[in-house]
């Protein structure tokens, strides 16, 4: 099933192999980073990263970086 979500304010077609938030982070090469994830305006704890991604979900991801 095709799923189009809003990811960090932009429309995003979720690849077929990405089922949940953890897999999305892997796909975006953010799995090893410290990230904060919000799904449909709620902050997700790490143990909720297995939540499935559904069509029209709103997801925001902020990862920490070192520079400045």
């Amino acid at each position, binding site marked *: 099933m095709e799923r189009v979500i809003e990811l960090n*304010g932009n429309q995003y077609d979720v690849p077929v192999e990405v089922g949940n938030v953890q897999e999305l982070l892997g796909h975006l090469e953010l799995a090893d980073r*410290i990230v*904060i994830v919000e799904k449909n305006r709620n902050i997700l704890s790490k143990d909720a990263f297995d939540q499935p991604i559904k069509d029209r979900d709103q997801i925001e991801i902020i990862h*920490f970086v070192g520079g400045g």
Partner: protein
Amino acid sequence: MSSSKYSRQELFAPIGEEGQKRIREAKVFILGAGALGSSGAEMLVRAGVGQITIVDRDIIEWTNLHRQQLYTEQDVVDQLPKAAAAERRLKAINSDVDITGIVTDVTPQNIMELIDGHDIVLDATDNIETRLIANDAALKLGIPFFMGACVGSYGLTFPIGIQDDQPCLHCLLEALPSQTMTCDTVGVISPIVVTTAARQAADVLKYLTGADFEPKLESADLWTGDRASMNVASMKKAGCPSCSENAVYPFLSARESMRTAVLCGRETVQLSWPEGRTFDPLAFAESIHGTTTNLVKNEHLVACEYKGHRVVLFRDGRMLIHGTKEVVTAKKIAAGLLG
């Protein structure tokens, strides 16, 4: 006429004359005089902040100039420390502001003394470890800490210590990451520096003028157009060692003896000695004159080439050894020069 210097800022209704007075009374500590520090300091100095202290451990390099707006080619040739060059440039921009540049490495041992007495700490450091040290120190002293970081085309900001019920940086991070992306590993473009610094500065002005604002974790990527803004209040941890009632401020715990730090992505090792060991750069330059090449000296530091490495010794007793990631190699170089 100097009295008209802030007229357009005062015309902006949320600031007004009263807001300008509050800005004028503020004492701001800027942690780092690199990219974010340059940009943030220039905005706050032009805005007419009363007092600014800007601290940095490093010297200006060619690779800095595309994004560190306070510096010039001549500053690189002169091997000036960033804090000294920043002080000079900022004073030229606005003589109303009391500006002090301090050339030193911010550590758990000195940070409390450095930031005490300021109303705000502006984050412009280049690594998460120092951010966590600053987070602890600012929380301990009750000073708001305006976090900011950027690499590539991506940046994030988060004001800490604005509201009692908000999380601190330690709450958000849980664990110290083993490695994060830095400007020296993935590069950086100046627009994200200015954008990130502008968000920090806007939050600082809102705070200083007493505006009602909600501290949010925000990010932007100027290349992809990605953006995020989160209310992270739910992430405050009841037992946080940095911001709970029983805080122990773990990142302020003292470390002893000579410290070494491999500067991420830079092939540079920093050696620093316990408090109290300082060097006279000019006397040191005299002593190594015969054994080194490309010797450059000024009142802040001595730089030279020695055994294939570029070496910089600062007055405060720190030495940077470029061209190696090996602490052992760096210590041998230091021993060769200092005995």
